[in-house]
């Protein structure tokens, strides 16, 4: 059962990765190229020798990008299927497709949107190599806190469900999540390493493209996995003759 779900999750994630790769090629790569051109221009102006290319740009933007996004997609789909395997049947009477869509929405918010509001994606040329350890640490701390807050918020909503009803319980839990986020956002240190004359347009478009890649991944996983999991879980669920999933 779990194995079947895991396999399907990884396959759906792979498909999501292929689509996200296409999206990244069209909307992301132009911004990466512009950022690298800026980086080289800065190095030249400072009289530094150009960095030797270990891996050509064509490889980085082609097979390298594809490998990164596909591996990430398959891993995301697999992890998603494990979370689904736990959540399914534990979120009221939600059927497989609703459970999958809801988990993807909450996951996208907790893992991507909220952390990126504090530590957004950065193109090449933005970021001091000496602070990479510090920035990586903060980035993952932010994600862990955000996921923990989301799990707690879902638990809170479930506890309040019978007393307040579905809508009010969800609103209260959502507000509690926002309060935690506001506190954490204020408590963790800010990072701004954007060079002074870096193009604001390139930075904005890069960040939108980055968010778009994640949106493609999570939307395809959330909607695709629900469809793929339906048959697997239906074998186990006992449904009445006319009963459909919520």
């Amino acid at each position, binding site marked *: 059962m779990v*194995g079947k779900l*895991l396999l399907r999750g990884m396959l759906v994630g792979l498909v999501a990765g292929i689509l996200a790769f296409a999206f990244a090629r069209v909307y992301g790569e132009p911004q990466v190229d512009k950022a690298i051109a800026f980086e080289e221009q800065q190095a030249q102006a400072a009289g530094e020798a150009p960095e030797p290319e270990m891996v050509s740009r064509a490889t980085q933007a082609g097979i*390298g990008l594809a490998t990164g996004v596909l591996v990430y997609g398959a891993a995301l789909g697999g992890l998603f299927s494990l979370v689904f*395997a*736990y959540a399914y049947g534990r979120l009221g009477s939600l059927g497989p497709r609703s459970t999958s869509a809801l988990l993807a929405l909450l996951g996208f918010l907790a893992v991507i949107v909220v952390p990126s509001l504090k530590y957004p994606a*950065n193109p090449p040329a933005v*970021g001091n190599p000496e602070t990479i350890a510090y920035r990586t640490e903060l980035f993952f701390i932010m994600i862990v806190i955000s996921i923990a807050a989301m799990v707690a918020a879902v638990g809170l909503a479930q506890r309040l469900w019978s007393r307040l009803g579905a809508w009010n319980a969800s609103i209260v839990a959502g507000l509690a999540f926002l309060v935690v986020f506001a506190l954490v956002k204020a408590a963790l240190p800010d990072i701004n390493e954007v060079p002074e004359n870096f193009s604001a347009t390139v930075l904005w478009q890069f960040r939108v493209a980055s968010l778009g890649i994640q949106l493609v991944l999570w939307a395809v996983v959330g909607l695709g996995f629900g469809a793929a999991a339906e048959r697997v879980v239906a074998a186990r669920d006992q449904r009445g003759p006319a009963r459909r999933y919520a």
Partner: protein
Amino acid sequence: MSDTTFAPTYGPVAIPVRELLPWAIFAGLMLMLAIYFVGAEEGATSLIRGTAVHEFVHDGRHLLGFPCH
């Protein structure tokens, strides 16, 4: 949160935790290791010497939102 408004034998059936746990631990670790190689290897920490992995997945790492350089 069981489905109390319908007959209890109908509706989604949760997978017991003891059935899920081995999968969650082993597959979960492998999958997170895969994300680590795409997102963070040869950045803040390094399991393999050099910068080949970093350079190869460079664009994906930036575009997926991981800190890079």
